[in-house]
């Protein structure tokens, strides 16, 4: 179909401009009808694609008794690490932490996190042989004399080294957190992973126990009969109860999933804790028997019993947690992961459209990018609703939110300029921030309880969100700078008009970056004054934010004074990427100061690599080729004559 020979129809043109999501690559005439039709087709296709891919996992589970009902199992609400969450989240976050992946390969077949968790909890002797422990630190590999053929090791393989690992980790613990070296951090991490794993093994019952349900029932009956008739108590019984008590205490210590719902004044408790109270006369909660029965049935491959038990358990009042169930679904749909390929697709389509100057493809590209943003937005909003907090409470949240803010800004630019550049910026930033978020999620559950210091929704909303939007705008400006270098110096396809246009885009975005980062930083100061009594303490994170403010001010003043022209401003915007990345991650790597709650490791090389790549772009941008035009200050600037 050749669009360019069709005559344009004025009424449909109007329709098109109000349909607003469409993009104009260049001003050759085209009909609104065809573009709208293409747009519609593309959109329908995309929706169909997304729905199938996202809900594919949903419909995978037949409701028969041929397999355990994983969906239902994943919905079981438990208290873990200070938060009520579905068992599915426990499985995923533990597995990501230990294994660095969401699934493990067992005998050539891929096993998902929840199945792995069930194996660990119910059949630990089998699960011990799965190679899940990710050890990539060369010093630890050397210490344990592990071969190099694999990066992952099974618990059984680690057993001979447990004492060594524990001793080494203990030694490393005595060094202050920010003074530990890479090896020390890695050994502590490994030790923590092993502890986490052992705790999962003992989550329901002692790992060696075969039939905990029967044992627990017997204990409860014994106590009941003794309460009814205290005279029956014999010395043998006393010693028996003492042994049981020790066992339960041990179990409580070794596990950290709270399966037993609150009873009266008691909070959510571990099965071991609860059973210890049962020995003191507390009536046993049915959840213990149900979980123990599930464990036994799982050992025997009796899926029917599991499904009945799970259904029964989910029907109890304590399990009626809509947020927990919704979270299980949120995990399965993995919107924030699924948005990544859509961004990538949007990028490819937009690039192809720009290359061939095909208008309908450009519209399709925009639609795909919008779909990616919609997925991103939905994921962000859903996550917010689950945690009941503003979106940024940790680094993970900041990555998702920075990407989101940047894509929205880029799309506003796209709306204004309709030249595809907004699409590219949106895809680049959306995709990379979600990748970063994914890597950050490897450190465990991304919805964490908020520490007392940060527990103020008002400031989390104002200060944190505004500062984060400042980061977003810096990245939008920076990525436009990158596109500028590619087009002007490498491809040399920038004409005079687009040159000036890009200059205006970046200038405008930097103004917003200035506004957001300044206001956000000062609000942070006010929060600090409210809760710690000082407005400004030269804390690394504060300094990082200040660097961004100063850099924005420098860019704007340099532009106004004529020290730099459009190209110089682009170079400064690219350097802004480095400064923002330092402010976002670099200061956390230093591990000092009040804001170091988001401490992270191992990403340092990535940060350095990123900064070097940006410097290379700046160097390329300084080549004296490309548009050489007499540059004037844009009339948008608030010139202060000099």
């Amino acid at each position, binding site marked *: 179909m050749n669009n360019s020979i069709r005559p344009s129809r004025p009424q449909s*043109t109007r329709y098109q*401009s109000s349909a607003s999501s469409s993009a104009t690559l260049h*001003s050759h005439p085209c009909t609104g009808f065809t573009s709208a039709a293409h747009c519609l087709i593309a959109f329908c296709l995309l929706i169909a694609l997304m729905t199938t891919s996202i809900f594919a996992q949903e419909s995978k589970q037949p409701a028969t008794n041929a397999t355990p009902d994983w969906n239902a199992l994943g919905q079981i609400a438990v208290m873990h*690490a*200070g*938060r009520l969450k579905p068992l599915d989240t426990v499985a995923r976050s533990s597995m990501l932490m230990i294994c660095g992946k969401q699934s493990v390969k067992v005998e050539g077949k891929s096993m998902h996190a929840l199945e792995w968790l069930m194996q660990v909890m119910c059949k630990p002797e089998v699960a011990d042989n799965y190679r899940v422990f990710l050890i990539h630190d060369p010093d630890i590999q050397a210490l344990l004399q592990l071969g190099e053929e694999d990066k992952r090791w099974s618990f059984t393989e680690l057993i001979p080294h447990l004492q060594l690992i524990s001793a080494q980790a203990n030694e490393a613990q005595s060094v202050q957190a*920010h003074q530990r070296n890479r090896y020390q951090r890695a050994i502590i991490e490994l030790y923590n992973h092993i502890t986490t794993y052992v705790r999962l093994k003992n989550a329901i019952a002692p790992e060696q126990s075969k039939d905990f349900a029967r044992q627990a029932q017997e204990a409860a009956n014994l106590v009941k009969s003794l309460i009814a008739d205290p005279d029956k108590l014999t010395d043998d019984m006393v010693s028996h109860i003492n042994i049981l008590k020790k066992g339960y205490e041990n179990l409580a210590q070794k596990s*950290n999933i*709270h399966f037993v719902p609150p009873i009266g004044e008691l*909070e*959510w408790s571990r099965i071991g804790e609860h059973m210890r109270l049962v020995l003191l006369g507390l009536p046993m909660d049915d959840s213990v028997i149900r979980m123990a029965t599930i464990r036994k049935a799982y050992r025997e491959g009796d899926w029917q019993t599991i499904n009945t038990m799970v259904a029964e358990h989910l029907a109890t009042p304590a399990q009626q947690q809509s947020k927990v169930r919704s979270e299980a679904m949120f995990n399965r749909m993995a919107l924030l992961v699924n948005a990544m390929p859509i961004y990538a697709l949007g990028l490819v389509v937009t690039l192809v459209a720009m290359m061939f100057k095909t208008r309908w493809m450009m519209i399709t590209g925009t639609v795909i990018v919008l779909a990616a943003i919609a997925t991103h937005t939905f994921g962000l909003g859903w996550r917010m609703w689950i945690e009941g907090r503003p979106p940024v409470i940790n680094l993970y949240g900041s990555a998702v939110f920075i990407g989101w803010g940047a894509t929205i800004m880029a799309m506003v630019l796209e709306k*204004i300029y309709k030249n595809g550049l907004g699409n590219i910026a949106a895809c680049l930033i959306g995709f990379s921030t979600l990748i970063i978020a994914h890597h950050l999620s490897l450190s465990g559950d991304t919805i*964490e*309880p908020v*520490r*007392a210091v940060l*527990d*103020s929704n008002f*400031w989390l909303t104002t200060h944190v969100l505004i500062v984060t939007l400042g980061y977003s705008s810096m990245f939008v400006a920076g990525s436009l700078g990158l596109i500028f270098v590619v087009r002007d110096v490498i491809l040399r396809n920038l004409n005079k008009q687009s040159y000036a246009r890009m200059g*205006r885009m970046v200038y*405008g975005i930097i*103004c*917003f970056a*200035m*506004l957001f980062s*300044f*206001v956000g930083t*000062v*609000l942070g*100061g*006010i929060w600090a004054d*409210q*809760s*710690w*009594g*000082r*407005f*400004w*303490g*030269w804390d*690394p994170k504060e*300094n*990082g934010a200040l*660097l961004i403010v*100063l*850099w924005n001010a*420098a860019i704007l*003043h*340099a532009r*106004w*004074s004529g*020290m730099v022209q459009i190209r110089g401003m682009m170079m400064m915007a690219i350097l802004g990427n480095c*400064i923002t990345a330092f402010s976002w991650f670099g200061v956390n790597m*230093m591990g*000092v100061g009040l804001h170091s709650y988001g401490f992270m490791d191992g990403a340092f090389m990535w940060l350095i690599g990123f900064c070097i790549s940006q410097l290379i772009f700046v160097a390329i941008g300084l080549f004296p080729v490309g548009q050489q035009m007499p540059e004037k200050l844009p009339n*948008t600037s*608030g010139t*202060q*004559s*000099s």
Partner: protein
Amino acid sequence: MKKILKKFASLRITVVVLIAGMMLVFAGTLAQTHMPIREAQKIYFQSFVVPIYLQNGTAIPVLPGGYTLGIIMVLNLLCAYLTTFKWTTKRMGVLLMHSGILMLLIGQLFTDLYSVESYVSLDHGQVKNYSESFHKNELVIIDTSNKDANDNPKDTQTVYSIPASKLVTGNMITDPRLPVSISVKEFMPNANIAMGENPRPTQGFGQRVIVQPAPPVKGDQQRNLACVYVDIIANGKNLGTWLLSSAFVNPDFIEINGREYAIHLRAKRYMMPMTLKLQEFKHERFTGTNVPMAFSSRLRLVDPIQHEDRELTISMNQPLRYDGKTFYQASFANDDQTTILQVVRNPAAVLPYIACILVTLGMSWHFIAHFLKFFNKFVKQDTEVKA
């Protein structure tokens, strides 16, 4: 004259100062990996030049310090307003913005110069009418003849306080208001302390303590244990040598002219017109973790002059403001039995708030006005092309 001012108003200077400021902030941030914040702050931001030290100890200035940059920035801004600035409504946003920034800089300077930080550490049920300095000490001589004073805050004791800065080795402290004269034999800003026979002091608890001078520590969490050997002279008679240390919990006592005086080297105290009593300290953690969910102190405030007697709660993000000071929940100790409140007196605390409002208004005015103008123009262009 105007020419010179104009030279000084150049935007190029602004850009250079901003970039120098970034380098300074960057260096000052990296420095915090190997020195405490307080130290880095002094070297980089509360200084005129930042030196680096060579192996042989020679200092080479490498960066202008925070004060220098601040001054240049203010001058640059003022010169611009005196010469090149166009006083139109359109430029009001810029004016607002810059006056806000000026206020921030001044506020920071005032805070550096005049704010006082101290803390109150209260055990369960304890009552205090003073806060203590984190780092400063004082030598006090207390007339204890009015013994009830500790229990009844309305009664007063006479306390003679000598700031630690006066305790210089070889110094003789005499004042007609003091009941005694003090000859400082040796002052140690920090020392390692152990129990054991010490022959040097002839009086007091210090005879049983061995001190070894140590280099002062600079950490934010660590405290120096200052020690001093003093001779006390009353009525022209040398009463002996005392060893005093901020590490000693209890004072030494001397009798002069039938009156008993306590003598003590302790953290500098800031008196408050009211008393605070810790009723309860609450520390909640998230189930199954050590992550603090909330901590708060329930206090009773008694101010006999203002006739106030009430209970209140200080928690994270919820300080108490009283007597020109602000009391924040800072920390806790002693198995959740002790609360530690930080006390800040900052006369310039309000400036950043005004500055924030000014700058936000100015920036929004400026940028939004430009954005709208630009947007309108663009839409107009767009419609023209279509028409």
